């Protein structure tokens, strides 16, 4: 090729890219991991309410409704060119991360967000409350507690458990954690763990909490060994947990919308992951009394809901 032709080609290429605008739409694409999952859907509904109030446009994509979700999602992203993609759940985040790694992304309802590859253009609302905050509340309720035990799966919760351990160390609490790979290991792990601890902490680990049977096993073992159970969600109060501090799901949706709007306008630094803003403290007075567990009466002021034996 003559040099003049080569230069012509280069000028053409530069002109291609120079002529195009860089204007951004303010459309948000909501990618839901599974519409049938209550938590995901509640978050999506609340998220959309806030967007509507602020005159934002959005498009939705539910992963469970598509046989070839990856290709269709990629096409939709190209078609809609959203300013931000809101990923509800880990599955959605994982797929979007692969399909459009350079897009601005916001996630929520992803268990243990620290395992995700959160880059500069990624924002999030954590699924778990701040473990430092939880530990401090636990300490407030049960001042005599020295050792907390928990089960977890390394694939899903390693980073979260490491954070808990660091925060516990700062609070003067000892954490005994035991990794499991399968629900069949729960029983043995509990037998080993429970005698060594003051309270058992149920974290949102999807392997430990695989089914109702694994939940039943945990509470049965804890009851047999007269150990109180603290849980991340109030759904375990009925099973026998003495205390729960749960993140409010609807608030996560609204909080995400606020963060999305700020992120879209670059008003918040990239990589920001917020802890859930709303929480609810539930105390199971019945389980507490049955275990004859001492607790700080002043802490009752912090409780949103007290469950008695008749409830």
């Amino acid at each position, binding site marked *: *090729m003559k040099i003049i032709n080569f230069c012509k080609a280069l000028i053409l290429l530069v002109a291609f890219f120079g002529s195009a605008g860089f204007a*951004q739409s303010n459309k948000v694409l909501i990618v839901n*991991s599974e519409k049938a999952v*209550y938590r995901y859907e509640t978050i999506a509904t609340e998220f959309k309410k806030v967007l509507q109030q602020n005159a934002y446009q959005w498009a939705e994509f539910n992963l469970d409704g598509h*046989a070839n979700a990856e290709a269709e999602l990629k*096409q939709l992203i190209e078609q809609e060119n959203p300013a931000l993609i809101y990923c509800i759940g880990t599955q959605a985040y994982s797929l979007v991360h692969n399909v459009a790694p*350079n897009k601005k992304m916001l996630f929520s309802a992803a268990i243990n967000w620290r395992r995700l*590859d959160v880059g500069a253009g990624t924002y999030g609302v954590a699924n778990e409350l701040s473990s430092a905050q939880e530990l401090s509340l636990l300490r407030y309720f049960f001042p005599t507690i020295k050792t907390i035990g928990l089960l977890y799966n390394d694939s899903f919760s390693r980073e979260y458990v490491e954070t808990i351990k660091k925060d516990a160390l700062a609070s003067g609490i000892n954490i005994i954690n035991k990794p499991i790979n399968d629900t069949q290991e729960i029983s043995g792990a509990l037998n080993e763990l429970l005698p060594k601890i003051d309270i058992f902490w149920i974290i949102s680990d999807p392997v430990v909490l695989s089914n109702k049977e694994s*939940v039943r096993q945990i509470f049965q073992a804890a009851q047999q060994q007269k150990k109180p159970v603290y849980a991340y969600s109030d759904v375990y109060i009925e099973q026998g947990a003495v205390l729960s501090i749960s993140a409010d799901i609807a608030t996560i949706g609204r909080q995400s919308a606020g963060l999305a709007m700020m992120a879209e306008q670059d008003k918040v630094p990239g990589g920001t992951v917020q802890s859930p803003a709303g929480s609810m403290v539930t105390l199971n007075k019945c389980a507490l009394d049955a275990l004859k567990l001492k607790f700080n009466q002043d802490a009752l002021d912090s409780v949103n809901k007290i469950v008695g034996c008749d409830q």
Partner: protein
Amino acid sequence: MIKYLSTLLIGVLLLNSSAYANESTEHDSLEKELAYLAAERKVVVTASKMEEHVDKTVATTTVITQDDIAHIGARNLLDVLRLVPGIGITQTQFGWREIEVRGVKTGLSEKVQIMLNGHPLDHNLQNAGSAWVYDDLPVDTIKRVEVVRGPGSALYGANAFLAVINIITQNAKDLNGLQTSAGWGSFDTQQYRASWGKQFKNTAEAALHFNFTDTNGINSPIPADSLSVQGLNSSAPGKSQLTEGRYDLEWQLGYQDFKLDGRYINKKAGTFFGAASILSDNRTQQDYNDYFLRLSRIWKIKDNFTVDTQLFHDYFSYDNLWQVAPTQFIRSGLQDTRTGGEIQANYHFSDAQTLISGFSYAKEQQGNLIDEAGSDPARLTPTLTTTEERIRNRWGVYLEDVWDPLKSVRLTLGARYDRYNDFGGTFNPRMGFNWEFIKNYSLKFSYGTAYRAPAFGELGLANNPILLGNPMLKPEEVKTFETGIIAHPVAGLTTQATYYHSAINQIISQVPVQSTISKYENSGSVIAEGVELEARYDFDGNLQGSYISANHVLQHSVQLGRQLADVPQHRTNLTALWAFDNTWSSFAHVLIKDSTSRNLGDTRQDVPGYALLDLGLLGKNMFGKKVDISFNVYNLFDKRYYDPASTSLNFIGDYQMAGRAFFGHVSLKF
């Protein structure tokens, strides 16, 4: 009293229903929570999983996706490989192409291992290499091509010497129905493809691909041959006769954890120049058959412990008629088979550590030799065989540990020992690390060795008046050290710089033993070193889907103090993709190749360098997302350029490559 009883009954009923409702709500809440956890359990996004990203691997890897292939407007695998840094493609006199990797090029590309869905394709035991039938592999059914530059014998065994090219084709899930495509272009090129895939409810799945390709070849002018320069009767001046036609049939059948897959290829080709130093007329015919059949199963022992098992049978045969003089023909043919199995255990100690170990065994066999000669291709008579029937048994054991001691650090340690019944054992280690020392900046280092097993033709060549086989040959060896850095300085920008140094020893070369006779010997060594620079910027916003990228290699390969012949010291690829909208996009590619020097004693001037511009236009998802259309122009400015002809053909100059060429392609989904 009745009123009292009925009130009591209603009260009891109400209380009961209320209690039931409470219980039901509580159970619902737990069920909802467990359903959420189950949904989260579906995907494991672990640190180690993330580190399988190209950035985090220890090896230098380039991945070309289906989308990239569509934009390139690739006509075959070669058009895809051309864009990979460190890889160059050139024409041979016989027809197949040479794949140059990191400054090292050989006529049979036997130092490059090509794999299809992880299965090695070096089925030609006589001459090694996979370029025979896989160089012009159709690309319509390809989902991804992964090119790993550097030695891979520690995991893949023989012949993963300079690079591993793994071609991943579409499976049942990718197809999900019927897809067809057709392409037409210059040189009477035509391509047709039909693929069908379906996943059934009972876990069964099936994917079938069929390709047909035919071309008359580029008809390159051949000004002279050894006869014409003496004033004797010959086909020269004339044109190259590299017609190529092929059928490919691929299948992937799965049920539960079992999978049966394979590919059959029949390829017929003419020749570019010919087998001897005379220009062949159109009576040279190469006929290749190649297939493999693999039955595999994944055994899930525990969540963190799986075992992959496979049995395979590979087949390769050729039956070629070569014109060696205007009225003299030889026919040569053979059949090669490789039958064996492999068992590989994958143990995930934790997200931070995975151990892979395995054992493989294969029996390789060569037979059904055909050697004939005569003046009439229809009436040839048997001659002495030029090679021998041969059986080889080999086994290998390997172990690899991938360990992330920190989230930002990955260490890889591996080794493989292979034992052959004919030349003994060979041990090949591999080690490396990847360290993300600052967010988005990773440093790589690796060291590894690899080997290429002597081919049957090199061991047992016989009755050849000018070249002798050598049953005492040892494998060729390479030791490679490489280090590099990958960085994402700003969103959308990926940059990579790699330095490599390879020492190739015990090269199997043709060494003169008498004035006119040579013999295969382990002789000589090559030092190849170079730097590969890559950068790609993906646009966002209105230009979502557009990118510009560039790669440049500076390579220096030395044998006996001289730069290797026919290998450029610089090669650059510039590419740009502009997505006009959701449907239309255009693609531009500029290849700039440095001049190449000649062999010692070859007095021709260096082969001049050149720059070529290709342009393409692609329309995707048209007419209800059912139709894709593309049109590409190669060598837009009709640049005249040449691939080097071997020193033995120095009297003809070099091979003139294709001028401006067009290719149009239509793809339909049902």
